[in-house]
């Protein structure tokens, strides 16, 4: 792919300043890669509008003829999508709130207060990022089943209230650490205690990063598959991800319906992504930066 373009662009490069030619080449490569990366999504959309007959034509056609919009209502009724959406939100909302509360409290404790052993405790917490999830999942599952919470949303929500995803604590701590110290000191002189400083001073100026954490953890709950798979067994309590997986097992050859169902689970994510893209990218950037 790139070798061919390189030769065809050599002529151009000679005539112009080297920087321009290189940039033009980079631009073209970007276009080609974008097209390639969007192709699966085009395939998804195209398949979700097709009739069964057309989907099995080979070589494949790209334009559905006719557009079969019924795929969507059909996919949405075969599986109670609305119910699964509600179920997913019943997990997502308390999980996001819990993550925000527990992670921001911990992050403040690690970033703005000086206490002996603080960095050691944080280091130990952070090291659990390397812990394979499955190793804790098995005993945790047995624990929840001992106290009778299997087939409820409790095991899916509670860990978020206990700062389970250390990554968010890390992200918030990075942000809090870079806020000017004077903020706390001024409030302290006025007699505010750390909780008041946290609530009235730090949180209001941290809205962007809190939004990042809310988006990332919300997405996490939306996409989560292994946890609902393990903890939820009755189909009326399924989440969207779990419902989609079950749908896959039942309708293996009805690709148009499967693609329509997949589109339905993807579209909300895309909308959130486009609305909050700036925060999104910022959040990911922050995760790798600023020691």
């Amino acid at each position: 792919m790139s070798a061919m373009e390189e030769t065809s662009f050599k002529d151009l490069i000679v005539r112009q300043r080297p920087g321009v030619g290189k940039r033009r080449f980079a631009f073209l490569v970007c276009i080609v890669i974008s097209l390639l990366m969007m192709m699966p999504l085009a395939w998804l959309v195209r398949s979700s509008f097709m009739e069964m007959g057309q989907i099995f034509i080979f070589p494949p056609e790209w334009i559905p003829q006719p557009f079969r919009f019924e795929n969507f209502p059909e996919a949405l009724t075969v599986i109670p999508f609305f119910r699964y959406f509600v179920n997913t939100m019943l997990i997502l909302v308390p999980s996001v709130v819990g993550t925000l509360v527990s992670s921001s409290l911990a992050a403040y404790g690690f970033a703005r207060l000086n206490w002996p052993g603080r960095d050691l405790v944080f280091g130990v917490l952070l090291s659990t990022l390397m812990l394979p999830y499955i190793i804790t999942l098995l005993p945790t599952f047995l624990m929840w089943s001992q106290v009778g919470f299997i087939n409820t949303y409790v095991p899916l929500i509670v860990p978020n209230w206990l700062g389970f995803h250390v990554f968010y604590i890390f992200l918030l701590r990075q942000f809090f650490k870079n806020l000017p110290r004077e903020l706390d000191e001024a409030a302290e002189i006025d007699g505010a205690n750390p909780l008041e400083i946290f609530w009235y001073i730090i949180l209001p100026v941290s809205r962007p990063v809190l939004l990042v954490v809310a988006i990332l953890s919300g997405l996490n709950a939306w996409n989560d598959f292994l946890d609902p798979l393990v903890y939820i067994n009755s189909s009326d309590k399924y989440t969207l991800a779990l419902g989609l997986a079950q749908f896959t097992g039942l309708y293996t050859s009805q690709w148009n319906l499967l693609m329509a169902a997949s589109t339905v689970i993807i579209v909300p994510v895309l909308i959130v992504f486009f609305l909050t893209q700036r925060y999104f990218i910022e959040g990911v950037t922050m995760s790798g930066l600023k020691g």
Partner: protein
Amino acid sequence: MKRWQTPLHSCRAAGRASGTRMTQISTSTTLAERSSGRSAAAKRKLSRRQRRELYWGLGFVSLAVGGFILLKVIPIVASFVISLTDWNVARAPSFIGLNNYMRMLTADPLFWKSLWVTAYYSLFSVPVSMAFAFALAMLLNTRIPALGMFRTLFYLPSIIPVIASSILWLWMFNPDFGLFNAGLDLLGLPRQRFIYEEGQVIPSLVFMSMWSVGPMMIIFLAGLQDVPNQLYEAVDIDGGNAWHKLRHVTIPMMTPTILFNLLISIVAALQTFVQAFIMTEGGPNNGSLFIVFYIYRKAFQEQQMGYASALAWALFLVICALSILVFKTSNRWVFYHGGDD
């Protein structure tokens, strides 16, 4: 502290730096105290202040530390204890010593197979997706038009729920009506069976993993943007070309970011699950029996909690060994420049 330093290293650095920070704060406090003319009381007040910060600090982190103990420390210990039993939901567990581990190492070819499959996938997908993410970041670090749009498009596939992308790729890999065989036909190449053939299933899944390198790309891009321009200018002055810049400036300056992405992607690759569950069910001929999928099957389909816990411990030890290996060798290839900001 260096802006682009990796977080895992930063804990070490933070440990070192905290001493300095503490002194800074205490100086500022004593100054404040002195200005109020009570330096004798300052010392006692300082320690009281420290105690107060300790209580508050512990209070703030208590939820997270409680979660750490309840959902991580206790489960890890419990997992090891369970791995020494024949725990099975149907009957009471009894202690069987290291039998599960013996069985795993000597009498379970599927364990070795799953270990091999997972290692093969990781060794293949980690470098390939990292190189691809790096190349994309390099492209986005040029001054071309519509940069924001390209960044969005390259990132977009990464946000798609893995369950949906697995179904989509399953359909694209379809040997009879899928997108990829249509493409191969178009290029005049022989058709393939992709995930339906043991020899191709892992390469196919590696190819799929290249689709969602967005976060890695963004982290690389941020690292690239922090490489000081003077270094490139220096190469220009010395008459170096683009390759010299990449080899002697970009890559050395990016090694901390590379280390970070390497660790994150190794840990993620070793825990691949959904692809196996949705797309291949571990097949064909256990050719994609990822270890987490195997553990899931043993634990939740065959109810062998004891044996599954032993398998989980094996994975845990592999990850520990690999991270230690990466960290130990990292001081040989990771370059931390001395500047401070």
